[in-house]
């Protein structure tokens, strides 16, 4: 059990870190570090849930932390990393519409807009400043995820964007209300299914396997031709 003030400061620090991971994902090109950042972001969410639990002592928060740890820190990153290895593209260099610097500015703009807009909407809930901040950061993270999904070309990066969005929704729900646990489980089931299907389809789209095989075949044919040529020469000598 930690003191209320400490819990509040800790939550604020964790929230800021979550937003930094969001900004990191928006700008990074290296696909493996994108997954690791997502993993880190999910771990921070676990931290937030546990800090809130230390004050609230609601078993629901503890279950949510455990669920997030297993699914988003361990299983989903593992699946995405495995698929990534199969696809074999280390970097996503294709920023579809906007450059990383522009993305950062858009992100800051989005946070400010959400902060302003939610002041009016959430006033009826009479939330404390910390919970208001959490809700605003949640929506901001969701929008950052959306930015990634629509501004990048590679499917794997889009998936990370979608996962970030879902983390934003989780953050938002943590600070707004306590949803029934079954709903949290259902949204995770949905996440698994969508990620799994998208990654499987991504093998077809992003894969460099085909290009690799093409090159390989070419090489192979050249080798064969060379051998044939030598063989003919050899035969001719006979």
């Amino acid at each position: 059990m930690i003191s209320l003030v400490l819990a509040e400061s800790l939550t604020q620090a964790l929230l800021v870190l979550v937003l930094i991971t969001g900004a990191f994902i928006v700008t990074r090109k290296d696909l493996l570090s994108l997954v690791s950042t997502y993993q880190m972001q999910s771990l921070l969410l676990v931290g937030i849930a546990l800090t809130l639990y230390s004050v609230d002592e609601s078993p629901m928060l503890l279950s949510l932390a455990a669920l997030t740890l297993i699914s988003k820190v361990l299983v989903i990153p593992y699946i995405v990393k495995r698929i990534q290895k199969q696809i074999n593209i280390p970097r996503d260099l294709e920023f579809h519409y906007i450059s990383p610097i522009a993305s950062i500015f858009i992100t800051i703009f989005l946070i400010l807009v959400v902060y302003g807009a939610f002041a009016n909407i959430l006033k009826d809930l009479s939330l404390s400043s910390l919970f208001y901040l959490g809700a605003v950061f949640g929506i901001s993270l969701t929008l950052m995820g959306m930015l990634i999904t629509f501004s990048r070309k590679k499917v794997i990066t889009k998936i990370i964007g979608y996962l970030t969005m879902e983390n934003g929704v989780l953050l938002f729900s943590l600070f707004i209300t306590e949803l029934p646990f079954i709903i949290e489980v259902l949204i995770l089931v949905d996440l698994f299914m969508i990620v799994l299907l998208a990654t499987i389809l991504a093998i077809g789209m992003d894969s460099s396997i085909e290009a690799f095989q093409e090159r390989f075949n070419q090489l192979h044919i050249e080798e064969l031709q060379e051998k044939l040529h030598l063989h003919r020469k050899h035969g001719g000598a006979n």
Partner: protein
Amino acid sequence: MALGIYLGYAIAALAVTQLVRSNKSMNLVTLSHVLACIALAAYSQSIGPAHYFDKNFLIDGLSVYEISITGTIFFFAIIYAGGHAERLIDLGLMDKRNLKPYYLSLNCLLMFTVLSFASNNLALFWIFVELTTFFTAFLIAILNSKKNVDASLKYIFVTSTAMLFSFTGLILLFALSENATGKGTLNWDELLANAATFPPVFLTAAFAFTFIGFAAKSGVAPFHTPLPHAYSKAPSAVSTIVSAVMLNLGMTGILRIYAIIKQTSAATDASNLLIAFGVLSLFIATLSMLHQRNVKKLIAFSSTEHSGLMLIGMAVGTPIAIFWVLYHMLAHALIKAVLFLSTGIIQRQYNSNNAGKIINIFKMQPLAGTGLILGSAAILGMPPFILFLSKFSILTQVAAYSVPLLFVMLLFLLIAAAAFTNLLSEIFSHTENVKMEKYNAPRRMTMPIAILLVLIFILGIYLPNDLYAFLTKVVSDLKF
């Protein structure tokens, strides 16, 4: 109990589809599943609104109506799919090994659509709608083409991303009910009953967020972008289901949330939001239709146009307008089935959907040609077809609501009519003296088109009293 029996049957149908091998057997099992869905609707209609599984499910009038439309569309689409799948395999467009996953996904899609319509808990509704997205995406990607995979991925990302916003809206709704009544709920009937106690600004925000996801599901602009690709690449039976049933699924979601907000002073804001998206959909869809050369894409954009029309009808919000919006859902679904099933045969004949490649259509494919031309006339709202009644009545209601809005709508509807006329006149006047092998579509593919044509004609000149009374009751149950 009835829903439980249906669910048991659906799972059994999935298991049997997994066990049997031939196309015919899998088709028959899926068809029996469709009949179970229609039986569920008929039984539920006879007993009246009923809750299932601890009030998480509710089959009320709206559910019965939507499940009936779903059953009807699936019925024709599955019969058609039997013949179509064989042709796709013969042409090498579909891998024979994909036949089982194809039927399994169709069964799952039907089951989750029925469960969505039967959900009282909005979180369950959300998850089932997401599952329909999953299986739709899978069905779009079932053909052996990278373009299909691309179309499928676009569909997943746009729809699922938008659906996450819907989930945020649901979290707000839950918080709202918790704040107002002391006990959080997402059960639609409870939210409707307590709607008057909800603070309007908060409710508007919840509505706006929820709207985004369901709008994407029903092809409302600007979330419609993946649909033209998805419709044109997917097998025609799948395009039919997506355009007719998935559109209704999204619209039902919007209607249910709108019914809640309609009980409060926030109704005007919600109504303005619907009009804005409705007009935007009409604008983008009709202008995109104008330069369209691909028949399937033209029909896809027409879905966005009709979503816009329905949104505006909903925004007007009078009981008569809602009545005709509901009737429009049925009309649109039946006509879209005629159009997509006809273009499916045309595509197999010419290996293309492009207007320039369709030659001597009446000679090569008389029934599909007739389906295309009558279906197009019907989708434009010409009498004596079913859509005339609903389109004309919605426009009459809009006229009473706002005359400038009516003129804007008429302008866009005129552009849509011009786009259809332009493309069709090119297709039907394109005759050349070329030798081409005729594709003899099996009766399983032609019969559904013929029956649907008769149906859209009959319902255009005769609105059954029972249907009228039933829909009036649905509208009053929604508290409009």
